[in-house]
């Protein structure tokens, strides 16, 4: 097993892809936390704990759930909205959950507006601008998610979670695989269950996830 661990950065001017450091994706029924394969149950707890600890916990929904291009996508979008609402209900004063879309992957000129969107070609701008210290990707095509996750790990201290509909993401600090409506709802339930049991990082939070 690799000694490398996928941890919040800023890691390096150009951090390696976690897969090239020997990190392997989970099999069905599993997740990974910091690059170590873990039972999915443990990942729900850790993801909820990270959300509840963060000063600006943020969900980044991508095109696969932003557009109602099939019935499943529409249901997932409703579940994501439910997770966000749950997060808002469960955080303490001073914590500011956000829902910022990744509507597309186009390079933007002269630059994106980091208040309203995140873009995989410079995701660090949105993280820095909003001082996001924990985020979850969902509905982002895997290739674009991996680019973003690695750039975020390279240049920010943001904790990253991937709720992936396919095989998962080594470049996130925590990754689920085979994401479904049930899994999103289960994460929301876990956040609700842990409400009030997790100490937010408010006192120690730096200026978001700066470099």
């Amino acid at each position, binding site marked *: 097993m690799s000694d490398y661990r996928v941890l919040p950065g800023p890691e390096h001017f150009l951090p390696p892809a*976690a897969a090239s450091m020997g990190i392997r994706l989970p099999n069905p029924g599993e997740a990974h936390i910091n690059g170590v394969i873990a039972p999915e149950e443990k990942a729900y707890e850790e993801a909820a704990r990270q959300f509840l600890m963060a000063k600006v916990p943020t969900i980044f929904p991508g*095109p696969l759930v932003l557009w109602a*291009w099939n019935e499943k996508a529409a249901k997932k979008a409703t579940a994501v909205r439910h997770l966000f609402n749950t997060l808002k209900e469960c955080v303490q004063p001073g914590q500011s959950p956000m829902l910022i879309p990744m509507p597309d992957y*186009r*390079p933007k000129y002269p630059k994106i507006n980091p208040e309203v969107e995140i873009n995989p*070609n*410079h995701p660090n701008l949105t993280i820095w601008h909003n001082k996001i210290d924990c985020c979850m990707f969902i509905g982002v095509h895997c*290739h*674009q998610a*991996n680019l973003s996750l690695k750039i975020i790990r390279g240049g920010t201290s943001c904790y990253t979670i991937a709720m992936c509909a396919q095989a998962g993401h080594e470049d996130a600090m925590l990754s689920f695989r085979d994401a479904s409506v049930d899994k999103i709802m289960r994460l929301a339930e876990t956040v609700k269950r842990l409400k009030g049991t997790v100490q937010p990082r408010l006192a120690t939070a730096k200026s978001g996830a700066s470099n």
Partner: protein
Amino acid sequence: MADIKSIIGTQNKKGQTYTDTWKMMNEAPRTPSFYTGSEVIKEAIRRASCDVMIAYPITPQSEAAALIGELFAEGYIGDYFRGESEFAVMSQCAGAAFGGARVFTTTAGPGTMRAMENFPMWAGARLPIQMIVTCRGINSPLSIQPDTLEIAYLLSTGMLVWHAETAQDFFDWILKGYMVSEEPDVHLPLALCCDGFFVTHTKDVVNLTPADMCLPPYDPYRSPVPCMDMECPPVRMMRDPFVMKSNYISYATHASWQQEIWAAIERSRKHSIHWLNGLIDTENTDADIMIVASGTAVSQGREAIRLLEDEGVRCGLVKVKTLRPWPEEEIREATKNAKHIFVPEFNVTGWLAKEIKATIPNHERVHAGPHVCGGMTMPPEIIVSEIKTTLGMKSFSLAGRGS
């Protein structure tokens, strides 16, 4: 598109049954058939549920392109046409794959080199195209005889690169190759190479799966990048093509993009092991002398081992099946007991020996050779001679064989 699992058991327009690939490859009855390698390619594609095949007809290494034209005429391929050049073919393959088709093509030698610009583009665009490379000489004076030098150029393109030894490998790996390269965490093109003429033009007994079974169709909606379905909203974001504005993205993105391609090759390791039963095959790994080879050099190495056994010299063998992903740990483990490692190759530069030297400890154990190139055959006796000479045993010169 319907879920793939719901398609299993249904029939395509030719009456073939979409079959679970693991069952088709490992449990279905096999029929021994006496075919050339080119005919075997045709038979594999008959069962591959390919949507599009594009070819440029300057590949005398293989008749596969023409034979697959027959498949199109019979209705087994969705579309089939000739490109204006090898470069055009590979660009057209990209277009078809961008649109969500399962794509197949074949090339060789100078054709591979002419089309080279497309291969890193395929990988960067995450297009799971399968390309058969029936290796031939690439240099001037032109040769249509086998030579594996072009593989050296493919190794750094970001494609998966496998090297088949036999026509049986070819048949099985064409079908299994789609399963690996279409995994969403891999989703890369595959260059499935063989030594032209030796594999493509000689006949061999190949065990074929039933012709009324075929692979499940490709599901482009599992792709890690959006496929170009102009009817469905996720693609409309591509109205400003990425390539047109790539100068507006950060260099960190360009770098991360390349890293992601090589990460995907790493991810293919797990799937390749599953489908190919390991990235290498081994024999006698406790021997002091090992032959490590890929392609038909494996067959010649196997025969050399038999000849050496007759003389009381015990020798082991490593057959390298995948070059990308590179079986680093497997080769290190298989050669850990070896005092001498011989790497016979059908090319002048010895790219496989260089890869192995960069992989194992105490690489002075690696003897890069024997080499032949330009279409020469590699008699097992010259491998025997190389080994015996290194061991200080008397060996007769084979220099007169070519006269």
